[in-house]
């Protein structure tokens, strides 16, 4: 797992799980389709990576599909930071 994935994973655990929630989340866990993150609160995930990596992610790249796993989000971050 890369540093980017680790950072996003930690944010997801802190932001979307209750303190007593022991749901196992990895970089491959489906976040939106499993109901851990809903399509509305997903904006917080987008805001976090934009601020953390000083990037702007266009709406078409911040789709529910692209943001469904930590792996997918990290791929979008890498693409945007490479520009």
């Amino acid at each position: 797992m890369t540093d980017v994935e680790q950072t996003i994973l930690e944010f997801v655990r802190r932001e979307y799980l209750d303190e007593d929630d022991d749901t196992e989340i990895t970089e491959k866990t489906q976040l939106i389709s499993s109901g851990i993150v809903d399509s509305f609160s997903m904006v917080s995930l987008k805001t976090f990576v934009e601020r953390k990596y000083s990037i702007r992610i266009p709406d078409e790249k911040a789709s529910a599909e692209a943001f469904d796993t930590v792996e997918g989000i990290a791929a979008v971050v890498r693409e945007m930071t490479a520009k």
Partner: protein
Amino acid sequence: MSYSEALRGRYRADIDGIREAGLYKEERILHSAQAADVEVEFPAGSATRQAINMCANNYLGLSSHPEVIAAAHAGLDARGYGLSSVRFICGTQDIHRELENKLSAFLEVEDTILFGSCLDANAGIFEAVLNEQDILIADRLVHASIVDGMRLGKARQETYKHLDYAHLEEKLKESQDARTRMIVTDGVFSMDGDIADLGQICDLAEKYDAMVFVDDSHASGFLGKRGRGTHEHCGVLGRVDVITTTLGKALGGASGGCVSARKEIVELCRQRARPYLFSNSVPPVIAAGALRVLELLTASTERRDKLEGNTAFWRTRLQEIGLDVRPGTHPIAPVMLYNAKLAQDFARDLFLEGIFAVGFFFPVVAKGQARIRTQISAGHERHHLERAAAAFEKVGAKHGILGMGKKEIVEKYGL
């Protein structure tokens, strides 16, 4: 393009998919006016059945109140059936302005603008007053119409955990680069009956120089000692910048909504809010009925007092029966069942006992949070609530969940 067989087939497949996912919504057909006692046809085509309505937003029992009906009749006679116009062309009547002024006085705000619904109000407000330099920070469980309204606007979006004001403060600290920040919350959350702590929210708003937006659809008319809403209940009258609410629940139950806010915000909505600019005026019959509703509620708190008593009685009875009712004081009293199929079966069995209540499950509520959402009305008499309680006890016993909490119900039925 013609409506081809291929296209028809695609839509049929979509509908089948909804059905297979267990998400297909069957409408229950009422053969009576909205009230505590209703005559229901369900499933469609079956004989009608008398039932006690435990799932209406008719909190104050005004949907079929004779004085409201009489006022609506008078409004129909005096100002006609419709305006055939949007407000800014030739669709503003004296009673529209009168209703806006009366709503402002009732809610104790600077000004009010009527919309066709609260959904329209929420769809119009954010785009009208905020842009990409600004940020909206919303509770994660706000109503779907707020989510849609936020998406229609250009302001940046952020969310905080439901009712978690330490988390909200973090978000406020992180967003200090924004020109304007607006905290967005429901006054009362429709699925849980949770009441937002507007005292804490207004304190944070003042500390971090943010505005406060509250959708008070499930509070206007009855929450607070005089029924003015969540802002009265929380002691923050005058500190909330924007209230949106509906005439479709406690305030008569017909339709229509409004933005009640600082006067410049209302004025900007009149100039820019697209659902206001491009859809017809609220019909005169509704404006006249709603005016009478506000007169009734201003003259006496009797109906909201009765609702408060009914709610306390109902919540206590559910607990005595041994059902897992979500704690709170609001007339929305969810009976938690956690499992979606159990919620559906429970609602079906209640209907056979003459009780009209609906099961809610994912995606309307979070996975594993299925429930029967009961809603109490001032239109209920004690005999309605006693009969409903007996039915809940009988059905709860049938499913073997009386006295059980979440852990035991989940062990028995799964999530």
